[in-house]
């Protein structure tokens, strides 16, 4: 399954890219599993996802928890807690 990923703020800076398309292996079914899989890619990803609990995630422009499935998603985004307003 092909999946568009978006990274923002310091997650983007550590990962080293703002967006990419990935093909996660079959065993990766939730966003939490996707984070664990991404964290193993290289040092940048490892640094971005060092403390997974602080990472907020969105699925197709809606906030979701890490236990949300990736099945059927078009775009998954990873970012720190929001500081707008």
């Amino acid at each position, binding site marked *: 399954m092909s999946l568009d990923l978006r990274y*923002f703020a310091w997650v983007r800076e550590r990962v080293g890219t703002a967006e990419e398309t990935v093909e996660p292996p079959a065993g990766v079914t939730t966003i939490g599993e996707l984070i664990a899989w991404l964290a193993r890619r290289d040092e940048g990803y490892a640094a971005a996802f060092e403390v997974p609990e602080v990472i907020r995630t969105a699925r197709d*422009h809606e906030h979701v928890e890490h236990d949300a499935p990736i099945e059927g998603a078009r775009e998954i985004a990873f*970012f720190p*807690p*929001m*500081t*707008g*307003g």
Partner: protein
Amino acid sequence: MSPTIRIRIQAEVFDTESETALLTEGRRDVGASVAFTGWCRDEGGTLKALTLEHYPGMAEAEITRIAEEAARRWELSGITAIHRHGRILPGEKIVLVVAAARHRQAAFEAASFLMDYLKTRAPFWKKEERIDGTEGGWVEAKESDDAAAERWENGESSE
């Protein structure tokens, strides 16, 4: 009549008077409007600028969802939210929320609710540039903002 909802994400500055007029002009049933403006502070002279990053598409969608929730909770004529992105200097505006209603309590509460949720749920991130040239880094989320948003979850409202 369902309330007008106007959401914009833009780099440009905005004008409170004309945004309020867009909610009230031609209407004779609006008794109250509350316009909240968030400004960039210089943090005691240490901040040179903020850069606001956002998630295009989701920012509009999420703020729209918050505004729709406000429209469900209070009797509103209309609600506007405008959030800037890009580089913003101390003394400049960052965000505007306008709520218009028959009665003042609804306008005050809806504007306050929208700001509290916008702070904790709208996908924006602030990065600081310091006057002294050091890297200010990403602003950390404040627990007080989470607490402000949570107070609406227990149904706190005088209506």
